[in-house]
């Protein structure tokens, strides 16, 4: 039976993991390569590398790191951040990324998803959205959540999937950082709107939040989180054991 995926997300800036990470048995780690290997050994089903570098030098460092990671970690690797053109797709795919996630790049150029899907296949194109409720309507935000695009979220997701996005990462800005659970209302709407895999992001604070997510919304395929994994609040091995105890299929 296919399993629900657990995906740690690593923010990378100038070649290092942002804020660093401290694990009891690992010490201070800010090497994305080491951390990726660690997560892979712990049972992560997939990894997301998010490049928040602004400079060209940082970007080159990022691709070096990606290459090194793909040489040592043999689970699917998604790359996001600064993906604005099909050349950007090409750049990270050549370095070992399996999927590429687009967010603001697709808003700036709505033809990007379609172009990339035709070149690299739907399975390779991940649409990532930052969504926030504004006057009771789910809106798409751009530029790392700083700018309200005015786009209605569900319609935008449906449109991009129609163009060829093979997977959707739904990040709720309303629940992100609050650690009170995923945004089930938003996720339910996205799951009913599209048939491609949906990855929930934003709001996980504890193991039970993942259990609630997968039990309430069987249409959600994966849960993504960052800090709760980095700071050891949730251990992936424990999370997966608990998923299985609750009858949720997990790869152990």
């Amino acid at each position, binding site marked *: 039976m*296919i399993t629900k*995926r657990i995906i740690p997300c690593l923010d990378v800036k100038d070649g290092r993991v942002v804020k660093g990470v401290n694990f009891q048995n690992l010490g201070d780690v800010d090497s994305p390569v080491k951390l990726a290997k660690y997560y892979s050994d712990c049972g992560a089903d997939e990894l997301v590398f998010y490049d928040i570098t602004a400079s060209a030098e940082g970007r080159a460092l990022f691709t070096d790191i990606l290459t090194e990671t793909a040489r040592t970690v043999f689970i699917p690797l998604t790359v996001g951040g600064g993906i604005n053109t099909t050349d950007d797709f090409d750049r990270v795919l050549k370095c070992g990324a399996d999927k590429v996630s687009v967010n603001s790049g697709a808003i700036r150029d709505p033809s990007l998803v379609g172009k990339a899907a035709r070149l690299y296949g739907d399975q390779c194109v991940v649409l990532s959205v930052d969504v926030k409720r504004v006057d009771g309507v789910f809106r798409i935000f751009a530029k790392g959540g700083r700018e309200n695009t005015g786009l209605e979220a569900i319609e935008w997701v449906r449109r991009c999937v129609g163009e060829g996005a093979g997977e959707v990462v739904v990040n709720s800005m309303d629940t992100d950082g609050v650690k009170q659970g995923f945004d089930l209302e938003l996720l339910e709407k996205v799951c009913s709107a599209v048939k491609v895999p949906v990855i929930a992001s934003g709001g996980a604070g504890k193991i039970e939040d993942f259990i609630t997510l997968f039990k309430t919304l069987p249409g959600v395929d994966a849960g993504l989180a960052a800090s709760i994994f980095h700071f050891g609040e949730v251990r992936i091995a424990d999370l997966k054991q608990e998923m299985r105890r609750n009858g949720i299929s997990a790869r152990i």
Partner: protein
Amino acid sequence: MTAIIDYGVGNLFSLRSSFAAIGEDAEVTADPERIRSADRVILPGVGAFEDAARKLRESGLDEVVREEAAKGKPLLGICLGMQMLFERSYEYGEHPGLGLLKGVIRPMAGRIPENLKIPQMGWNDLKIKKESPLLKYTREGDYVYFVHSFSAVECEESLLATVEYGEEITACVGKDNVFGCQFHPEKSSNTGLQILRAFCETEGIA
């Protein structure tokens, strides 16, 4: 040396890296001579069947693959590369494959329940159907990573392992020296690396 055939389909970085990780010599090549001198051959592939089959044919490498397989050299098709080992595919039309294994490729849509997504994307656990040198390090229940919308059917003769996705889906095939994985061993963590290792240890047929 293992020749990984480069016919312009998909990204071979991870595949090459996974051979390095298990300490096996592998070379990404489109050179018929290198493929002929290799100890074993990998036929990779992602994307659309028709496009990939055409590229393989236009490069002339389809004949090289057939010849080497006929000589008894171990051959492993991965994902779309596995699908091309069969007689034909019904992916948007009808397209001939290499015909090295008996069976055809059909869409999963319509065969599996509506609530299951297509492509099957993610980790699924193997059900072993037949012992094989390819699976000598693999156990029932080991997880491997899939991304596919079409699958091999009518292939009982070579069926080695399946996964459950609405129905039993062909995951792994093998007959004599010709093997195939629908999943991506190069993305399936240690389970996948062990399958590649086992492939490198197969002897072929003299």
